[in-house]
């Protein structure tokens, strides 16, 4: 019998529908993998095997009655622990939310359950989604299932959606939700040989997603391939009156319209992304990607995004500023941790609670954000950053007058070792150099696994598209995928 955990979203959906296997068999197989890998990989904060089984039983019962099983019927998934899930602990990987059991369900997770998906558990992440290596979680590091050839050193699964990327790569889940603020879907996907797409800002509701930087946060799927991402994104997306920035647009049939034929399409190659001292392997892969897209029928041109070098510093003003405001809600009064020292007043309680409940990186960003928003500095930092953000967005608009999609690397390097960048926040931030610009402009962008480094680690290529054109992004992703033929998997050691 096939190992069901080797299957992706489309294969499981179709197999359950056809009666090749039951949804319960699928859920049991993944539940077993989740349990067996927990100690070694720490991908989940909470496992919910009973939820996965319950949804699977509902799908099997529907099939017996001849009812529609939904876009994700019978597919168990991992849920990043940034999405509020009813009565299931939701922590954002923080101590301050430890034990928090929402009395409501996020719109995106509810959409997935309505589409027939089931929940394997809540996935580990960087605390409040702040990090690029999953080393800021209060619940411990996620360990990548990948290892360098001939080495047992623990590698980062990327971040912040590191539990999601590790779970999909290690076949603990056929797919998982991620969220992307500056690269948190694309970078972990690139590090683990998985596929992930951040849609246009506003496609997926932010209601019930623990807020980091509200003008940047966007949910998206992480899965084995482009088709699986298209299916899951259809299930996640949609207008939600409860999110003021939700796009009031119909959800396209992305899966049905997938096409790897890029005839008549133009691909832009941004010259500013070719940086001094870039990793030769990444450059070679990028060149290979150009050749693949030409082979798919696309015309390839050079484009310029002149403000690229300012994207990261812009991001590291705007994201902390929004975070400092969003995280003001954690006060020890309404939910989560309370630290009330003997004889303390209300103000002391706030300060003690937040000192005990937030990790170092979260505190660092709150302090930066508080500083750049404080009287006397607001215009010099925050307003200037929002102006540069306008210029970055205009760069893309001009480029898209000449091209349909942009091809770039996802990350400047393959996965690094755990501990390698923890002492230097700036070098950690540089990981997002290629992913942050699209986030600042709210554009759809995806990472597709495209090759292996000389050490046998996955490398990703990134496609950035026009606003609302997820289809163009997915199609270019499919064209790359068809040519890259990436089939490498981490050898099982866990």
């Amino acid at each position, binding site marked *: 019998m096939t190992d069901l955990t080797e299957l992706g979203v489309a294969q499981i959906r179709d197999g359950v529908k056809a009666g090749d296997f039951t949804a319960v068999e699928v859920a049991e197989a993944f539940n077993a993998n989740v349990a067996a890998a927990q100690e070694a990989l720490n991908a989940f904060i909470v496992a919910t095997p009973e939820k996965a089984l319950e949804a699977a039983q509902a799908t099997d019962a529907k099939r017996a009655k001849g009812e529609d099983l939904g876009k994700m019927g019978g597919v168990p998934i991992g849920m990043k622990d940034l999405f509020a899930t009813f009565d299931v602990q939701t922590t954002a990987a923080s101590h301050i939310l430890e034990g*928090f*059991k929402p*009395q*409501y369900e996020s719109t995106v997770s509810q959409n997935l359950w309505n589409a027939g998906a089931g929940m394997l558990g809540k996935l580990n992440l960087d605390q409040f989604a702040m990090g690029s290596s999953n080393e800021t979680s209060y619940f411990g590091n996620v360990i990548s299932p990948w290892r360098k050839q001939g080495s047992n050193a623990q590698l980062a699964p990327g971040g912040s959606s590191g539990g999601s990327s590790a779970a999909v790569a290690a076949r603990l889940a056929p797919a998982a939700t991620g969220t992307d603020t500056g690269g948190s879907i694309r970078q972990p996907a690139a590090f683990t040989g998985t596929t992930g797409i951040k849609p*246009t*800002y506003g496609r997926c509701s932010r209601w019930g997603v623990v807020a980091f930087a509200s*003008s*940047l946060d966007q949910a998206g799927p992480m899965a084995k391939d482009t088709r699986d991402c298209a299916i899951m994104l259809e299930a996640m997306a949609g207008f939600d*009156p*409860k999110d*003021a*920035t939700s*796009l*009031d647009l119909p959800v396209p049939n992305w899966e049905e319209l997938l096409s790897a034929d890029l005839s008549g399409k133009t691909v832009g190659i941004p010259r500013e992304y070719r940086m001094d001292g870039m990793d030769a392997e990444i450059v070679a892969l990028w060149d290979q990607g150009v050749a693949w897209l030409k082979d798919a029928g696309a015309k390839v041109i050079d484009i310029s995004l002149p*403000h690229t070098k*300012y994207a990261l*510093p*812009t991001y*590291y003003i705007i994201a902390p500023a929004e975070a*400092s405001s969003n995280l003001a809600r954690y*006060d020890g*009064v*309404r*939910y989560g*941790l*309370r630290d*009330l020292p003997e004889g*303390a*007043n*209300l*103000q*002391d*309680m706030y*300060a*003690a609670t*937040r*000192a005990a409940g937030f990790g170092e990186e979260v*505190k*660092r960003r709150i*302090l*930066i954000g*508080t*500083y*750049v928003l404080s009287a006397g500095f607001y215009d*010099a*930092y925050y*307003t*200037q*950053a*929002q*102006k*540069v953000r*306008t*210029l970055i967005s205009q760069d893309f608009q001009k480029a898209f007058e000449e091209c349909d999609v942009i091809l770039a690397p996802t990350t400047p390097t393959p996965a690094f070792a755990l501990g390698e960048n923890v002492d230097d*926040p*700036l070098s950690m931030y540089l990981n997002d150099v290629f992913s942050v610009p699209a986030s*600042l*402009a*709210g554009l759809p962008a995806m990472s597709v696994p495209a090759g292996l480094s000389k050490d046998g680690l996955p490398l990703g290529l990134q496609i950035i598209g026009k*606003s609302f054109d997820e289809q163009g992004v997915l199609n270019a992703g499919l064209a790359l995928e068809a040519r890259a033929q990436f089939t490498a998997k981490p050898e099982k050691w866990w």
Partner: protein
Amino acid sequence: MSVDTATVAKIASLARIKVTEGELEAMVPELNGILNWVEQLGEVDTSNVEPMTAVIPNTLRLREDVVDADPLTGGGKREEVLANAPVAEHGFFGVPKVIE
């Protein structure tokens, strides 16, 4: 611009995060490193540029002026709202005494 220990202490107090002397000392160089790096934005000419307010053009919607139009986010949810409070008493959030 760079920050000193007193400034970091002030920011931490504004952010309502208690920090020890040792943490303050460690934070000063870290924050200065980040602030010096983001200051390169000052070299960009933005004299004729509007700050971004919406990343994707969108219109602000108005909802119908109806009580509990969406039962999920409407009223009558006291127990649910208090369910996760560290101290919930008599149907209220409990806090340390704030009036002498």
